[in-house]
């Protein structure tokens, strides 16, 4: 699968993403500069973590108007696979490619640690290498990860099965204690209605090799390449 990783001014997890898809999974990957207006023959676009445009105004608010976002909007509308990690998730929400918004953590602390998330939907292109109910351990590193949407939108997300990952404890139990940022319904990752756009606050690319302490995040990328690709 041909991956593209978008680089905004202030992105800082772009190289980590490329390492995961290119070096760990052996998939062709290219950097896509935020000024580009075409994605070329890319089959999956990743919006990486970081602080695009310094997080000025609101996280993701300014990146949304980058030239490349027009191309990503068209790509997503045609069914192209888009994954937004951390700041990438914030940008997808600001772009209305995903519903809701991400606010400052309820405790106002920058949370930087490993968390557990439960796979609520293992039928998506992003989780099909996982089992439903499986617990993935991945790091988070964010100040603005509190998922928010109005009651009606939350009900729709649940009804349509769009909640893909929920914060939980090591045993898969969801509770306020296992929710690191006060996210509504302990939401850690959601997909769009069509299922081709996925955003999550944890960093799968930082959990893709045993040297990093967890390989659980690799399952997300393996899912994207149909779970058929072996690490090189």
């Amino acid at each position, binding site marked *: 699968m041909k991956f593209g990783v978008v680089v905004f001014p202030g992105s800082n997890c772009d190289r980590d993403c490329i390492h995961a898809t290119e070096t760990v999974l052996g998939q062709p990957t290219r950097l896509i500069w935020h000024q580009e207006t075409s994605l070329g023959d890319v089959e999956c676009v990743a919006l990486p973590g970081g602080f695009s445009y310094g997080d000025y*105004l*609101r996280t993701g*608010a*300014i990146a949304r*108007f980058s030239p490349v976002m027009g191309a990503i909007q068209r790509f997503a509308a045609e069914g192209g696979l888009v994954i937004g990690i951390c700041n990438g998730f914030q940008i997808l*929400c*600001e772009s209305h490619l995903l*519903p*809701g*918004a991400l*606010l*400052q*953590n*309820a*405790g*106002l602390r920058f949370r930087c640690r490993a968390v557990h998330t439960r796979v609520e939907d293992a039928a998506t292109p992003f989780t099909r290498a996982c089992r439903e109910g499986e617990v993935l351990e991945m790091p988070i590193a964010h100040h603005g990860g*509190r998922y*928010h*949407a*109005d009651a009606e939108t939350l009900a729709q997300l649940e009804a349509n099965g769009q909640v893909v990952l929920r914060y939980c404890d090591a045993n898969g139990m969801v509770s306020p204690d296992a929710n690191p940022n*006060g996210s509504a319904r302990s939401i850690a990752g959601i997909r769009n209605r069509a299922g081709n756009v996925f955003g999550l606050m944890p960093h799968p690319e930082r959990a893709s090799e045993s040297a990093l302490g967890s390989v659980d995040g690799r399952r997300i990328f393996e899912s994207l390449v149909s779970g058929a690709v072996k690490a090189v």
Partner: protein
Amino acid sequence: MPKVKVYVKLKPKVLDAQGQQVRNALHTLGYENLDGVRMGRYIELDIAPSDRDLQDEVREMCDKLLANPVMEDYTFEVAE
């Protein structure tokens, strides 16, 4: 040149984590009668007159970029 003052704040139902912390700090300072604190963003715009309606233009700026309607409300006033 008209100066426009834009006020953006979180919707009433959205937890304002910053406001809560500031309220706690003010309580620590002894202001026990203080009930709540909500924080927001204040933006000044200098806009040269054009053939567009100023109110419409500012509303458009707010809807497109300055506020996120998912979580924020805004008001603005025009001062010459």
